[in-house]
């Protein structure tokens, strides 16, 4: 099992992701430079938060054209797990791996705070360890986190259970008051139809230890690990008959 953390110029949650994987989850992890064109051997790729290429023009818009993204698109199409956090989510929508887009927060300010989100779908590689409708406390820190898509796309997301996380209050109620940035349907995280690409605005890598105020983020990491372990067992099992 091997994880990769992509480093774009301007990535700034890359160290946090690496730390979470390497030190806390203690799994093999490697840096992937934004110019790298080959992702052979990786099982899961992290697109970390930050301001890729300064986020000039539009968030994630320049990163989408970097050499590594061509490889990431290819990797995802072959079924590899890709998770984009915050700016990583924005890059995934720009790259067309996830539908919709992320626009300026409704309040027009950068927001940084602890946020509660409700897990809407636990039948994914990223949320398998969560309980149905579980409320997780995960910090957010973004200026452009307002999820937008046209009605048809939202209907499609709902129909296919692609909405994975929704902003909620501490009791799990989905309301306008609990929506920090004006996202349609309180959307905090979505996956693609195939469930192997996941984008979310909250930062699970920033709440992986009690001393950080919450370790709810571990559930996301553990879900990925368990999923990959199971998959590898199946895979190796199929291979062994030779």
């Amino acid at each position, binding site marked *: 099992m091997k994880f990769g953390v992509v480093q774009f*110029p*301007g990535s*700034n*949650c890359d*160290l*946090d992701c*690496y*730390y*979470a994987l390497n*030190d806390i989850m203690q799994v093999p992890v490697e840096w992937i*430079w934004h110019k790298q064109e080959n992702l052979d051997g990786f099982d899961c790729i992290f697109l970390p938060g*930050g*301001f890729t*290429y*300064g*986020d*000039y023009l539009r968030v994630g818009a320049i990163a989408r054209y970097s050499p590594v993204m061509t490889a990431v698109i290819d990797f995802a199409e072959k079924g590899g797990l890709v998770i984009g956090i915050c700016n990583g989510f924005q890059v995934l929508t720009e790259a067309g791996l996830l539908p919709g887009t992320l626009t300026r927060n409704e309040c027009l*300010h*950068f*927001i*940084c*705070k*602890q946020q509660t989100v409700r897990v809407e779908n636990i039948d994914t590689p990223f949320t398998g360890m969560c309980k149905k409708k579980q409320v997780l406390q995960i*910090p957010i*820190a973004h200026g452009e986190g307002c999820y937008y898509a046209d009605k048809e796309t939202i209907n499609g997301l709902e129909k296919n259970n692609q909405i994975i996380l929704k902003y909620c209050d501490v009791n799990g109620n989905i309301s306008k008051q609990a929506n920090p940035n004006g996202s349609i349907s309180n959307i905090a995280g979505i996956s693609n139809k195939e469930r192997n690409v996941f984008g979310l605005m909250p*930062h699970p*890598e*920033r*709440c*992986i*230890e009690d*001393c*950080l*105020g919450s370790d709810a983020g571990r559930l996301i990491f553990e879900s990925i690990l368990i999923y990959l372990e199971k998959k590898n067992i199946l895979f190796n099992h199929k291979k062994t008959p030779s």
Partner: protein
Amino acid sequence: MNSNNQEEKDLNSILEENDLTESEYKKILETLKREPNDTELGLYSAMWSEHCSYKSSKPVLSIFPTQAEWVLFGPGENAGVIDIGEGLAMVMKIESHNHPSAVEPFHGAATGSGGVVRDILAMGARPVALLGSLRFGRFGDSHVKYLVNEVAEGLAFYGNNIEVPTVGGETYFLDSYQGNPLVNAMCVGLVKKEDIVVAVAEGTDSIVILAGEKTGRDGVGSASFASRELEGKEKEIEHPPIPQGNPFLEKKIIEACLELVNKGLISGMQDLGAAGLISSSCEMASKGNCGIELNLSLVPRKEKNMTPREIMLSETQERMLLVAKKDKQKDIGEIFDKWGIEHTVIGKVTSDGILRLKEKEKIVAQVPAKSLAEDVPIRYYNSRVPAKLKEIQKLSLEDVSQPADFNQALLKILASPNICSKSWVYKDSKKISAKGTEVVLFPGDDAGILKIEGSDRAIAFSADGNSRYCYLNPFVGGEIAVAEAARNLSCKGAVPMAITDNLNFGNPEKEEIFWQLEESVKGISEACEAFGVPVISGNVSLNNESNGEAIYPTPIIGMAGIIEDFDQLCTMSFKNEGDLIVLLGENKEDIGGSEYLKVIHNIEKGLPPQMDLSLEKSVQDACRESIQAGIISSAHDCSDGGLAVTLAECCVTGKKGIKLEMNAEIRNDALLFGETQSRIVVSFPEKNLDTLKAITDKYEVPMQILGKVEGNSLKIGSLVDVEVEQLKKVWESGADNE
């Protein structure tokens, strides 16, 4: 007019343009043994400005204690460095960006952060935390509102982009800052001891590399701008263009420079801050006892037709100057290329001690590097006790009527913009992060905390300064600034280790202002001695005046301490129903200079609270030892707003009520809102009372049981009875209500 007069007039106007005195000009003539050309005059003007040279404050600052066993680098480097054990060093520095923030608050504040972050980087350290100390004018004033919002956004914008969290700080609103806000930014970094880099040029086979942004005219002359009074006409008159920050580039520079440091490729590094290229190059040459020769034709520029003077004085942000052995040039280039950072060899290190500037083959300036950086003509000023000091210190308690309703008084004080929760200022800043070598906790408590990854230990920081106290008595105000910063750390269980100070004052040529500076520095020094905490870096910002009126003297003390065991970390919130609440220290009748007097009676007079440094130290030692003994549930110090505000904050953050019986022989308003120093409120399970008593006895610290954590209201005898929910509402939204 005869030609002699003409020449004299010319010289006078030249000196005025360059902000140099006649005797300073004479000194230049003696050094060069000839007349300086325009470029050289510009170099001296910038390097001998107060902002770069501290020429008026130097004699005063010399009394700061700067030595301790754990100090690796004290004042004089880009930032101070202390040994924190386990092979690690901590780097800290505070910087002001007052004048730029007055004119262009967003970019002024942003580049203030960027600059101090590069100071930390220049020592080879990874910047890990920022603190902001902000002062604005009248709360509610529309221009002040604009300044606060823009400054907060600017700090957040820069900090978030480079992912350095704001872990603490303080914000005050006082009329005295109406025309001259203060924006002080403090940064802390961590570095492996063996990776520390200093700003020194050495070895004649060494090259000088300029990396980062292309050089433009932004900020040319800023060092002298910063050293002048604001006249309130900055928007109409010409001032140097305020540099703008590019945090995206800064982030890449941080990563690239740390990679260079990590691979041992460079021998010296300095950021380009005030007075840009001239300041960084002459200081590196001077420290290395060598010279530097720069070819200005090689400096990448973003504007056309720049003169040598403009190139040398430009304050374009996000630039670093590096010195390295020639054979490392290729490796360094590869790392900068990888990160997409422009880098150019612009010169070399020489052995003759001369700073030589060329344009192609033509020499455009050559002066001894030391004459710019070290042989600064000191300006000695006279000091005088302010004429109205006696009057402002006079306060007759009989003239101060006690509030009829203490509940309302408490709510009003809690809602004051200087007391209420500052989360509205810091809401935009990065708070929570886990990052390879460190972990950061939330601001809003007495101190910001940073856990050292892979170790049981943590670092705690705080920034403090009460300018009203300093206005009424600068010596005591200086002492209290240090004592309170240390008290905030002690309430976390941390041992205070080092100070970085920022001295914000008015025009030192005015005798009364210089007296304030002298007295404050004396007070700070006494307190440093008492706590055994050295000053390891700092900054002086003078001429903070508008329309001839100086700001209140505002020394800001940034302090760092070590927590030996992170698991013992103590916070201020009340935790358990039934816990005893105990006051360490004594309540006295101190209401002079208090927030209570200002908010309830609109008086800024009287003597500030007295400071007994030995009692202060004992109270802090007792508190720290109790925390380390694991017997305490919460600890919070008494400061602005007094005991009632301290208790309210513990209740609100802990969502718990209290019931206290207090019999004091002092006035009720002094009991509740007086700002007597050397007091800490702790809470703990009753079974630990004997252990606590043993500790307070050992340190001879007075203690009294105030009551218990109980119910949902804050009840103090028959004086106060308010629901915690209401306190919380007022405390959290205080700033919105105006």
